[in-house]
């Protein structure tokens, strides 16, 4: 076996040193009645060469954005990933090491976390951030649980315009501990502040609002913030980090917690993961935050260094009293996000965001001029918009895939949205005018 260096001679020498004749003697503690009596029923081993061929064929069965122009979004986006990211994050020192339990030999990872936390605070305008969580949806669920613990209230309200996966994940997490979750419907594409106000009560721990929301629309954040805080609840915002190049930060809107999916920052979509959730909050919540946090300190020679800190929140210390069961972060993905934000920089993030804004509006203007197409919601949007289509959106998406276009997300995939013939179209900086024009032309054939 290529991954097992020991030879038979090595094994014999080791057995002799132990004082036994065979490995079987080491397995004697496993009762016969639970032992497998034959080999596992799995395909035989492949050589590395065969593996390349087999898996290369599987990958080639997919119609990915490598070959097709993608307008698919809905929480993960085909943004440009600069080459340096893969080369740096692929270094063994980052890729193969584990959680920095021994900080003296993990400063690369730890300083990377500190830089990441700083960047997330810069983006969100909040005081403290953690080292990352699994994804945006589980970060939203963790926010709901933090809000419950911090306010000692048991209800969580979700905007109906929140990503359906986030809604479902919050509900799944809420079930066991008995958190009551309610969704306020958003029939005109955004959360109506008055409707929200009537749903709030003095047992509401938090309201989770996505901005721009699942349909791409901007919410009326100023009004929502007043309503939420007026009821003594916490405001949790789910945000797209790229949007923060042009759109106001959660901190400036008055949010208490900001979460989101960080894939857009230098990570591939990779059929849904791995990517990263980010989590930032006001400083008063720091001791209730889930996940790993790195902090700056000094060593015995007074040199700057970094360690995992505030571990009294964590499961290996607090066990059943921990703030969360999370014991790692999406470290490599967070590092990729950190490298992305370093490369793209202050000016670059604004430019990426503006390119998304210009291109998506160019696409929307052209598409809505086609007979039978209209914006599902007449609201300001950032890089993504929902249109009503003259034919079932699923049919359009299927047909356009044959023409080299991934036209968007068929909103019928999400029955809870109750939106017929809805197509969600995302336009990132990566899409060219000619690709957009091809999409418009192809959509026009359904008019």
């Amino acid at each position, binding site marked *: 076996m290529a991954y097992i260096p020991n030879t038979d001679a090595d094994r014999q020498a080791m057995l002799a040193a132990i004082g036994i004749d065979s490995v079987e003697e080491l397995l004697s503690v496993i009762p016969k009645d639970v032992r497998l009596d034959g080999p596992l029923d799995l395909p035989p081993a492949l050589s590395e060469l065969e593996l390349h061929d087999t898996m290369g064929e599987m990958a080639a069965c997919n119609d990915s*954005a490598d070959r097709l122009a993608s307008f698919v979004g809905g929480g993960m986006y085909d943004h440009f990933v600069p080459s340096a990211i893969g080369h740096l994050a692929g270094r063994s020192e980052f890729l193969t090491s584990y959680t920095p339990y021994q900080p003296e030999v993990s400063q690369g990872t730890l300083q990377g976390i500190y830089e990441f936390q700083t960047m997330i605070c810069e983006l969100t305008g909040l005081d403290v951030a953690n080292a990352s969580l699994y*994804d945006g949806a589980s970060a939203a669920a963790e926010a709901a649980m933090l809000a419950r613990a911090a306010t000692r209230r048991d209800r969580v309200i979700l905007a109906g315009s929140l990503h359906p996966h986030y809604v479902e994940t919050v509900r799944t997490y809420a079930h066991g501990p008995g958190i009551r979750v309610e969704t306020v419907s958003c029939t005109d594409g955004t959360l109506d502040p008055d409707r929200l106000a009537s749903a709030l009560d003095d047992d509401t721990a938090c309201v989770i609002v996505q901005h721009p929301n699942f349909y791409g629309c901007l919410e009326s954040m100023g009004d929502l913030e007043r309503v939420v805080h007026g009821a003594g609840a916490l405001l949790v915002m789910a945000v797209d980090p790229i949007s923060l190049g042009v759109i106001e930060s959660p901190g400036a809107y008055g949010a208490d917690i900001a979460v989101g999916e960080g894939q857009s920052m230098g990570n591939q979509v990779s059929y849904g993961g791995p990517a990263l959730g980010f989590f930032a909050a006001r400083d008063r919540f720091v001791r209730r935050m889930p996940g790993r946090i790195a902090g700056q300190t000094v060593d015995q020679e007074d040199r700057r260094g970094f360690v995992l800190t505030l571990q009294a929140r964590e499961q290996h210390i607090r066990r059943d009293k921990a703030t969360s069961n999370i014991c790692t972060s999406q470290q490599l993905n967070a590092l990729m996000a950190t490298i992305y934000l370093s490369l793209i920089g202050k000016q670059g993030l604004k430019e990426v965001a503006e390119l998304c804004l210009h291109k998506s509006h160019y696409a929307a203007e052209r598409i809505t001029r086609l007979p039978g197409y209209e914006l599902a919601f007449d609201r300001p949007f950032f890089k993504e918009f929902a249109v009503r289509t003259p034919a079932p959106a699923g049919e359009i998406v299927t047909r356009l895939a044959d023409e080299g276009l991934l036209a968007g997300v068929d909103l019928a995939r999400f029955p809870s949205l109750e939106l017929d013939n809805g197509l969600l179209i995302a336009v990132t900086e990566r899409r060219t005018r000619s690709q957009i024009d091809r999409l418009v032309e192809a959509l026009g054939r359904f008019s």
Partner: protein
Amino acid sequence: MSEPLIFELSSPGRRGVRLPAPDVPVKPISTYLPESDIRTAAPDLPEVSEVDVVRHYTRLSTLNYHPDRAMYPLGSCTIKHNPKVNEDMAALPGFARLHPLQQDETCQGSLRLLYELSSDLAEIAGMDGVTLQPAAGAHGELTGLMIMRAYHERRGHARRKVIIPDSAHGTNPASVTLVGYDTVQIPTNAHGLVDTGRLAELIDEETAAFMLTNPNTLGLFESEIRTIADIVHDAGALLYMDGANLNAVLGITRPGDMGFDVVHFNLHKTFSTPHGGGGPGAGPVGVRSDLVDFLPTPLPVKDGDAYRLDYDRPESIGRVRSFGGSFGMMVRAYAYIRANGPDGLRQVSENAILNANYIMRRLERHYPRTVLLHGTQKETPIPAEVPCQHEFVASGTRFREHGVRMLDIAKRLLDYGFYAPTIYFPLIVPEAAMVEPTETESKESIDRFIDAMLAIAEEAEKDPDLVRNAPHTTPVSRLDEARAAHPKSLNLRYRKSLAE
């Protein structure tokens, strides 16, 4: 000289990547966005060139120890070699650039991979159904608990508590709390195993589950596992296996055959996906047939020759995250299982066990295996004739007389070029060091590690200060943990805002 923060390398006007000019009409952004939503203060991100970025992160990387450099004997974490071909497979553009919300017809290659990996994991664990959705081991554990809760609720009584051994991973009780159950701890007996008599006393009609790791966290196989399973099932409870130590049993025994009802896998341990400095991982969960309905939605299924995601699962606990999970990790695990085949996987476990026993035997005179008798500080030896499985837990109490703790020995090991074992876990072993070599270390590599451990044992007696003040050769020396625990220490932005 420490590496500056990337922000400290910033110089106004520098760019790390340039973007194309707009190729569509450009209007003022206020045409599109209300003034109140336009950001006024730009985030203060670094302004650096690509060269700055490449050098900064390359220099930072050199401050890390990692298993491509030397043995990383971190017990319970299974830091094995990460085959390079797996990285290339995950980076194939057909996988890496496939969007999770594309229609199933355009994702047949990935769906086939999900379907086959689920089947392979079910076969390896002796289970009937598998979800690949959980993002990490702790997430798998949480998902498993949610499934068990759903099972009991369906039977009309959710029950209230979950029993775990006092040697359990800290995530176990934390996950139990998250699903609204109470934790009941069961002591380990003098042999380092579950006290089955005590288990029978503790279990009752309010017990939802017993969570166990097998081999357990002492590296010992729970030989009475069938009895344990009977006790649990007779009480109407479920038996959960924390799959942290699955690297010991591949092709030898299976959780399902041992009587477990639910198991989580750690693709980043057993199936060689890289740990990434602390993630991403992947924590699939396998269940026996009568729990399959509760698995998270969706599941990959095969209809004829076509694969699709099945969302029509009314009894499901729901989603535990967005999209389908850590797909990139699944690609790597799939490649690993295919590269090994059934015989190779068994070789993995046999060699992991052999390597661990070899180290244990050669170190036992200086680092014996012991366990604290429940409720006492009385240290009891694990009988010498009992083999360990893929890892073992040694105690460093004999160095106390020299004022040397296991923490010091761990730090000294860094000077010898090795990462340290897991220390002070499990909690029932005094001055614990949990050593897991994995199957991917050669005898030479293991011998070097043993030599280092023996040399440190000698140093601890003859020159304890050398050990107590270790490490001496690392990029930084021991760090002041207390000073990091203040909000101003948690990021540069907040530090600056407090200074203003």
